[in-house]
């Protein structure tokens, strides 16, 4: 690891000013940054820890909504009864990350700010329709989670901008996340698929499908969602939704699996997640 200057600011404004400098990196849980610094893929001159800034940690309910601080440990997201009950896909995604040791360090803000297309919490946040609160020395703004990412490892965040919170509006009545992987635990997703639905007497009134690791950024399968809305989930509709989701995917082939396999599995897993989300609704 190369040497760097370590900062522990106690306000967001101070952290933002430090982070706006060149060669600066934010430190949350360290499970991406510290590994990157050891591998010399990250060589920041200053590292700015967020752990001393009050108000960034923890899960709170606000009416129907849930607010998750960016510094909340992934393990807390996994174990939160509120998230398990109302945003099941997100709790399931959190439980899929690394090991207990990793989930006790990793934060949900870091998992999202790292902007890996394969992040395990991202599909759950997509189907929760999460808003991402962002702060900088100049003020605050909020973007929808599906507008945050611009490419692998890339976001709309400007220099000095820091994710502070994820706000989840009224939950869908049922949701589910499937991670396609080889190993039961300690594996990266070949594909992640989440679905969330609202039902009224068997009719799908709202549907959201989130796809991870099948495009340069995490995406919503909006065509498939539009097909589902206003209809009952018949076998035929399920098949159409799966095909539409697969059509939305633009995966690559890599050492994990081929693009063709990914595309086919988006179809299969979209159907499976939808069926489970509807069963839970």
């Amino acid at each position, binding site marked *: 690891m190369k040497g*760097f200057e370590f900062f522990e600011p106690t306000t967001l404004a101070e952290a933002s000013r430090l982070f706006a400098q060149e060669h600066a990196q934010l430190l949350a849980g360290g499970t991406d940054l510290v590994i990157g*610094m*050891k*591998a010399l893929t990250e060589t920041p001159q200053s*590292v700015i820890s967020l752990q001393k800034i009050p108000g960034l940690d923890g899960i709170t309910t606000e009416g129907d909504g849930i607010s998750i601080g960016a510094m909340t440990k992934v393990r807390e997201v996994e174990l939160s009864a509120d998230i398990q009950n109302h945003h099941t896909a997100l709790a399931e995604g959190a439980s899929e990350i690394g*090991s207990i040791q990793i989930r*006790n360090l990793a934060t949900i803000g870091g998992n999202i700010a790292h902007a890996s297309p394969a992040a395990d919490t991202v599909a759950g946040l997509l189907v929760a329709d999460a808003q991402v609160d962002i702060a900088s020395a100049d003020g605050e703004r909020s973007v929808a989670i599906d507008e945050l990412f611009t490419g692998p490892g890339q976001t709309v965040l400007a220099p000095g901008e820091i994710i502070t919170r994820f706000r989840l509006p009224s939950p869908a009545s049922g949701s589910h996340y499937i991670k396609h992987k080889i190993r039961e635990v300690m594996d990266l997703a070949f594909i992640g698929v989440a679905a969330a639905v609202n039902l009224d007497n068997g009719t799908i009134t709202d549907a959201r499908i989130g796809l991870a690791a099948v495009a340069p950024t995490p995406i919503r399968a909006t065509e498939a969602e539009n097909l589902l809305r206003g209809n009952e989930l018949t076998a035929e509709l399920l098949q159409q939704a799966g095909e539409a989701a697969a059509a939305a995917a633009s995966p690559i082939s890599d050492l994990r699996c081929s693009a063709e396999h990914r595309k086919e599995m988006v179809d299969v897993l979209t159907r499976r997640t939808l069926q489970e989300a509807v069963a839970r609704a």
Partner: protein
Amino acid sequence: MARKSHVQTTINGETVEFLCESRQSLLEVLRDELYLTGAKEGCNNGNCGACSVILDGRLVNSCLVLGVETEGKSVETIEGLADPDKLHPIQDAFLENAALQCGICTPGFIMSAKALLDSNPNPTEHEIRYWLAGNLCRCTGYDKIVKAVMDAAKETSA
């Protein structure tokens, strides 16, 4: 010479002060500055769990924590587990079950098992295997390790 930071933390119940560079991990601080060599360096990137310690009550990979991050925190390592004249029941169970071969992974497995039994005193075999997934044993002695944790659970929850 890089500038060193002064850090005060609690290790195995005792207040400890040390100087470290910002780039030193907690694992390096424990081993190289404090000579607590129980926690081991295996992969040094968060995969193998040989460096597992309990930080403010949470099981973590000490290779992924910076020493300078631990100011004011509490660290439990394998060195703090046994009483002066008596091993911890998990250590006894590992000996009784011959749950170690080369021994490099053992301190990590034992700290991991301790964190598990602290939060879930009566885990099922499946829960034990799931929890220990972040600890690798290159000698592949997993069955004996799982058996040891099951025995330790019986002992400590009895």
